[in-house]
């Protein structure tokens, strides 16, 4: 089955660290508790300074974002090892982050949880695309189409089936690496 997402994009620049994705005061929420998972989504990217990002990522009072695709610069997800970060984005309804590069622990947490697809882009899209532009992300051809231009993304490779399965535990069970329940 083809996997294609069309959505307005939300654009951020370099070094969006985990405190900007989910500020530390919300880390009291435990992601494995269902109602707290939803709350984490409502706070996704609330740590971005208003002076730089006047458009809110999740509207006041909402638990989901209208932006299923985030476009970022270098080093997205740097900082803490908090898994609350990819979880907050996933809980808010984000499907993929397309960044020039990712910090190591964040990338791994995306895969381990299966919450979002971390796509690398060789082109600095954060300076080309604007928040609100509508993009189509085709996971089978690894292309992002926005404002009439097609951009090739670095294929997800081995991490895609893990995220498709819903994270490392589901993948390990489906592939027989660990016993199924």
């Amino acid at each position: 089955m083809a996997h294609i997402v069309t959505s307005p994009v939300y654009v951020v620049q370099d070094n969006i660290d985990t405190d900007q994705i989910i500020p530390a005061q919300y880390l009291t929420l435990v992601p494995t508790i269902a109602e707290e998972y939803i709350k984490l989504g409502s706070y996704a990217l609330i740590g971005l300074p208003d002076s730089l990002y006047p458009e809110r990522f999740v509207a006041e009072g909402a638990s989901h974002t209208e932006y299923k695709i985030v476009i970022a610069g270098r080093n997205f997800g740097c900082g803490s090892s908090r898994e609350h970060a990819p979880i907050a984005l996933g809980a808010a309804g984000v499907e993929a982050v397309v960044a020039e590069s990712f910090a190591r622990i964040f990338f791994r947490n995306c895969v381990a949880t299966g919450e979002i697809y971390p796509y690398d882009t060789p082109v600095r899209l954060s300076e080309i695309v604007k928040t609100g532009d509508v993009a189509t992300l085709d996971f089978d051809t690894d292309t992002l189409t926005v404002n009439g231009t097609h951009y090739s993304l670095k294929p997800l490779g081995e991490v895609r089936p893990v995220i498709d399965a819903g994270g490392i535990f589901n993948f390990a069970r489906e592939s027989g690496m660990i016993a199924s329940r």
Partner: protein
Amino acid sequence: MINFLMTLTEKVLARASGKTHVQPGDNVWVGVDTLMTHDVCGPGTIGVFKREFGKDAKVWDRNKVVIIPDHYIFTSDSMSNRNVDILRDFVREQGLPYFYDVIDDPNGNWTFDSAKGQLSRQYGSRYTGVCHTTLPWKGHTRPGEILFGTDSHTCMAGAFNQFATGIGNTDAGFILGTGKLLIKVPETMRFFLEGALPAGVMAKDVILHVIGEIGFDGATYKAMQWEGPGVHTMSMDDRMTIANMAIEAGGKNGIFPCDQKTLDYVRERVSENGTKQDFEPVELDRDQSFSYDKVFDLSKLEPTVACHPDPGNRKLAKEMGNVSLDRAYIGSCTGGKTSDFLAFAEVVRGKTVKIDTFGVPATTKVVRELKETMWDGLSVWQILESSGVRLTENASCAACLGGPVDTFGRLNQPMKCISATNRNFPGRMGNKESQVFLASPYTVAASALTGRITDPREFIS
């Protein structure tokens, strides 16, 4: 020809995966010697463990799990207090020996009493404070071993010649059930230190200088290996400061060779605490393969500042005198050790700070040592207090990462703060329009005295 010479990180990973040789890019399953978690990520890790392995599942090895509540402890936030209770329930259910609880009653509940205020002690006899500083103190760091922790500054334990790195809740939940983790062997970057630090310059300046050199993502997915005669002149505290901030350049881990100082430090603490006594350090090979290799002369370094908004935004303190400040802060795993407070006290002794200055010892042991260390009939604790520093006995991570709004020292309005901590992305210490400048305890102290960013050599002869 296969090159069997390996870097320190490769050697630890090869041994832990039962192989004679590994190279960068290999994916290997490693056996875990220690898994550490805390109050922020522990409840979620426990949640993953129970969801995936069943509600009656037992951890793979009771003696290899260390649980340290340290982040949001001295706060009236009821969710934070609840999270400490979740840890205690799990420890009781699993019979875990290494839990450094806030309270003494194993069946009790933790509630912070805000009426008692933030400054005076509110913990029982077993509480220790910040996890990364607690691990070596309580004999949980050993050369040649593998440590994972649900916190990015877990890399601090690389000071002890081990592989140590931060992971998320899902990976930690996997380890709780299996004792193993699949990881990719990182490339190694070598930082070869020559000479010795001049007066007024500290280990913090070394790491801020290096991050400025390679950039905030200059070590992404790589091991930072520290070598050279300069390393052996440094104390274990200095090495911890440097290893701690590998993550601020994106590094997977930092690692030091093992020398007599390492052995003395580790042996004393494993024996004092009755933790595992045997360990096998990894030694340096003569020829190793690095993706980056550079010599740094410590004697040429100067007091360094990482400016808002990232740890790689490097300037010299002496160039920053025009930046006026609202607050100074000393504390955290990186900058809240006894040696950090002694350096700070050296500068402020007999003088008065000009801006709000907060001090949060990393551990309860640091509190004790500052009260017991006497300089001319006064304890260092008294010296700091009489200089106007607001010192708390409640050791914890506190405002290093903002936290709940009533956290001691948190930046609740937009302001400029100079801090001995390790991270300064927007919002890190609270208010997201604030600016945080990272510096050594010397530089933070000198700046607290003048109210602007100040080269501490103005105060140190």
